[in-house]
């Protein structure tokens, strides 16, 4: 049986957390190029140029891209034939602790939602586990900013609301909160499942590359249509007006109850920090 040491997981997580705070994804940089070509407002293009410059400065590894270096969220796929030498949960949490302290990242996590005292090390991270076939450990990481997370929404639609209801809910969510969520945005949309599954689908979608379309052509087309419709809202870069509001729309779907049509929109800002490691 293959074995991984907890310390190895800790080290890989810490490294990933630091890297993602400083080095913005190539897909986002290509998204900025696309934005410059498609943004009709001069003020909007000026914002995009500032973001490109910001990405360049941050990539030197001295000052993070954004001061909100996020609350860490993980999707962890554990191969059932893999043995972990150590405590998996604690190894990941320790990776976040070390990454956020050693990387000079902001500690943005409160121990309790109402009594609001900072844990001072950005833990706990939110970790979703899945047992899968094989002997590998796949860790998908997101450093999710609070401003964009606050603008996210979920609705339990009626089946009769249909695809139009889903489209309207996504567009309405961007219309209400898009300006506050640091556009241009990456939208993670979950459709189906039940109440909590739908939110998790949306989070998974928000942590997918904006250049990867849903493998089902029906949903891939819906992703493109929603992108176009959100960009027609006029919100623009930083909400100051313009023709580029979203860089991409990612949809994840799951089976659902015959009376249900849940939909969730998890908004990601233009940093859209995510990364993946396989151990």
């Amino acid at each position, binding site marked *: 049986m293959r074995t991984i040491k907890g310390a190895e997981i800790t080290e890989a997580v810490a490294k990933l957390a630091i890297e993602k705070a400083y080095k913005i994804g190539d897909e986002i940089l290509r998204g900025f190029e696309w934005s410059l070509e498609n943004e009709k407002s001069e003020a909007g293009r000026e914002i995009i140029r500032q973001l490109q410059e910001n990405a360049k400065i*941050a990539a030197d590894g001295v*000052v993070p891209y954004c001061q909100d270096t996020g609350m860490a969220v993980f999707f962890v796929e554990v191969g059932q034939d893999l043995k972990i030498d150590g405590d998996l949960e604690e190894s990941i949490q320790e990776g976040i602790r070390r990454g956020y302290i050693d990387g000079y990242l*902001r500690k943005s996590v409160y121990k309790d939602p109402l009594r609001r005292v900072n844990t001072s090390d950005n833990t706990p991270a939110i970790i979703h586990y899945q047992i899968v076939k094989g002997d590998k450990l796949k860790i998908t990481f997101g450093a999710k900013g609070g401003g964009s997370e606050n603008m996210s929404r979920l609705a339990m639609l009626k089946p009769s609301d249909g695809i139009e209801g889903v489209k309207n809910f996504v567009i309405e969510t961007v219309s209400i909160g898009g300006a506050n969520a640091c556009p241009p945005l990456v939208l993670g949309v979950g459709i189906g499942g039940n109440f909590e599954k739908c939110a998790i689908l949306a989070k998974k979608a928000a942590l997918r590359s904006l250049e990867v379309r849903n493998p089902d052509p029906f949903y891939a087309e819906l992703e493109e249509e929603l992108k176009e419709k959100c960009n027609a809202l006029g919100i623009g870069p930083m909400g100051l*007006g313009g023709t580029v509001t979203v860089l991409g729309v990612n949809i994840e779907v799951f089976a659902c109850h015959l009376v249900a049509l849940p939909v969730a929109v998890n908004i990601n800002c233009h940093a859209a920090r995510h990364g993946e490691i396989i151990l």
Partner: protein
Amino acid sequence: MAEYRLTAPLKDEDVVKLKIGDKVLLSGTIYTARDAAHKRVVELLDKGEKPPFEIKGSVIYYVGPTPPRPGMVIGAAGPTTAVRMDAYAPRLMKEGMKAMIAKGKRNDSVKNAMVEYKVVYFGATGGAGALINKCIKKAEVVAFEDLGPEAVRKLEVEDFPLIVVGDSFGGDLYIEGRKKWQKAG
């Protein structure tokens, strides 16, 4: 749309010439404050006590920076979402605050108070934490050190790039900008 260079603290005559969409390069002394610091300042004012910094003429930047590396004055320092400070902002305007720097839409009570007390709302580019870091020449914690990233800091800034997103005549760029670019249908 005009372009201005201004130096903080600001006066009424600086504020009233500004209209939404104007570009401003701001230099001078500004203060940082977020949710928890706003709450404490307003509590002090309501008790009739002296706030920990001069509010008259002040420019308040809604930011919670990353910790500085050794030898640096501050870390990434982009704006946070303004709406969380809406409950406190009018009280500070009454005390003479002249400008806010943040990102995102404001509520009507803030916009009305901006007209009443002649206050401007500047938008900084959200997420541009590394770029804005270059404009900050000095930083010093002046109050509420226990709040960590949310402590009140006195900053010396140079040519901080801003856009007027709310003016002292009730103008709101989040509404007007979107109206201009929204496609019918």
